[in-house]
């Protein structure tokens, strides 16, 4: 069956929409691409002009130079440690709060939900100096736990709202059914709600990882020798050669890209999919 050909007006509309989408995508993708190309080209290629849009000789030499630079490996380890502690804290505090928001109608529930979001209104740059002073007093300064605490505070609103969405999607009747079948409240949560919420909780965990992995300001202010990777890169940025910056940029952006690729579904839900 032949379908009637679409009207010119419709074609124009569609090409406008797709044209704009392509433009927006290029805006984001081209810098990524150039960073990636520079990170895997020989060091001298960065200074060539005009640049070849397609890399001629690919090499891991530049990346190897970055990874082997002084302080990079320890700061990667620091970053991973901070992220792990942050994920632990954020989920232990955030998931129960999300569960409570999803399951219970308690007085002040709406206010609590607003207050959770309101914490996002304080710029970390304003908080960082008093935080540094407080941490110095508490002996948490230049300590990975201190950085992880700040990252936890930054990630908590997301974790609470994401997990409450996750638990709302797990029908309460399932937990009640488990209770009538011999589970305690806690057992019903563990055997029914938790397994069903696990993919969503994993998304929240990975989201938290990216927040912590990419956070630079608090990490820079609150540490001196125990730098996380972004703080380390930032502190050496002024004195580094150009190709080091490209390699570092690429190294830091990759986890976020992988995350977005796997977690698209959950992020779309979070950002107005429902």
């Amino acid at each position, binding site marked *: 069956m032949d379908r009637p050909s679409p009207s010119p007006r419709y074609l124009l509309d569609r090409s406008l929409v797709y044209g704009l989408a392509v433009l927006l995508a290029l805006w984001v993708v081209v810098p990524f691409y150039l960073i990636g190309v520079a990170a895997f080209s020989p060091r001298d290629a960065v200074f060539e002009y005009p640049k070849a849009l397609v890399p001629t000789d690919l090499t891991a030499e530049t990346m190897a130079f970055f990874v082997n630079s002084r302080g990079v490996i320890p700061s990667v380890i620091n970053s991973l440690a901070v992220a792990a502690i942050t994920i632990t804290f954020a989920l232990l505090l955030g998931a129960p709060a999300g569960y409570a928001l999803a399951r219970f109608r308690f007085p002040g529930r709406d206010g609590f939900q607003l207050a959770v979001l309101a914490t996002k209104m304080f710029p970390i740059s304003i908080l960082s100096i008093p935080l540094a002073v407080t941490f110095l007093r508490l002996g948490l300064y230049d300590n990975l736990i201190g950085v992880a605490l700040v990252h936890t505070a930054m990630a908590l609103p997301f974790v609470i709202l994401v997990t409450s969405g996750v638990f709302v999607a797990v*029908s309460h*009747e*399932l937990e*009640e*059914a*488990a*209770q*009538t*079948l*011999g*589970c*305690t*409240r806690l*057992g019903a949560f563990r055997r*029914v709600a938790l*397994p*069903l919420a696990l993919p969503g909780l994993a998304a929240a965990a990975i989201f938290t990882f990216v927040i912590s992995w990419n956070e630079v300001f608090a990490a820079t202010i609150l540490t001196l020798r125990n730098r996380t990777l972004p703080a380390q890169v930032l502190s050496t940025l002024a004195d580094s050669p150009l190709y080091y910056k490209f390699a570092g940029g690429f190294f830091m952006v990759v986890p976020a890209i992988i995350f977005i690729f796997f977690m698209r579904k959950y992020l779309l839900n979070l950002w107005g999919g429902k």
Partner: protein
Amino acid sequence: MAGITIDRVTKTFGKAPALRDVSLEIREGEFMVLLGPSGCGKTTLLRTVAGLERVDSGRVRIGDRDVTDLAPRDRNIAMVFQSYAVFPHMTVEQNIGFGLRMKRRPKDEVRRRVADGAELLGLVPYLSRYPAQLSGGQRQRVAVARAVVMDAPVLLMDEPLSNLDALLRLQARADLKRLHNEVKRTTIYVTHDQVEAMSMGDRIAVMRDGIIVQVDAPMEIYDRPATQFVGSFIGSPPMNFLQGTIRDGTFSGDGFAFPVPQRPEGADGRPLLMGVRAEHLTLGGGDIPARVLVSEPLGSHALITAMVGTTPLKVQAPIQTVVRPDEQIHLGVQPSLVRWLDQATGEALP
């Protein structure tokens, strides 16, 4: 085996009372239907028996055990939920065996009873499937099987058929009734469907606004409703009600008057409702003058709407009956089939 005693139970959500001083006795092995419109408190009452809802006051006893303060798992009940609440991350087999595993029954016993339950509900071919791969009717049967294999003396069902399509519901209704006859558990069954209630219940408790209005056998409730609400909620078409007063052996109201041979004591002179079922009214040979409004042939019988004064009455007549609109007819009724109610309270006269 155990009966259930609900003793003066009260439950309030916020400011809205859901149950007001409700008492109900359910006998061992009985199939009790809680029937009422949505929001009448029937599901809340079921959940207080299950232990999913705490009562504000009153007691709940199962057998001779006071379970009011016990958790659901300690009450020895099994429940079928309206949404089925089948666990999506478990196979049919794991779903049916879940409760038995939670009770730490030996593995071979679990396997045997899951097989029995699957056999009983016709689920054997689907044991290794996940709920997402099942139809609505099959999921409903998984939920029933999961509850039945628990061998709990009390079975609670919250509108288990309301999410099925009409044809499947007829089938599932008969299946559930057969199942009850086989396993003979004390059952509380919540529904808003009066046909389900009539066809399945040993007794029906009709609820409205957090109160049980009438508890009786289905036919008693049908023939002798305690209030106007029960009469109009049960039966299709609803019971006919005619407003008027009795004086000197004549019932008269807006545009009609006819003699009544039998009347209850103390009925004279006060505002009354005369309640009568459509199938108890006969065409011709009676004392009630009426005018035909419309006649609807429904296959097995004809439903005639006739005006008595200004009140339309439904009359169930044989399908061969031929009447024309505006035709003047006379309706008859056996005095013993008439229900007299007080107009102000809606309650039946003794």
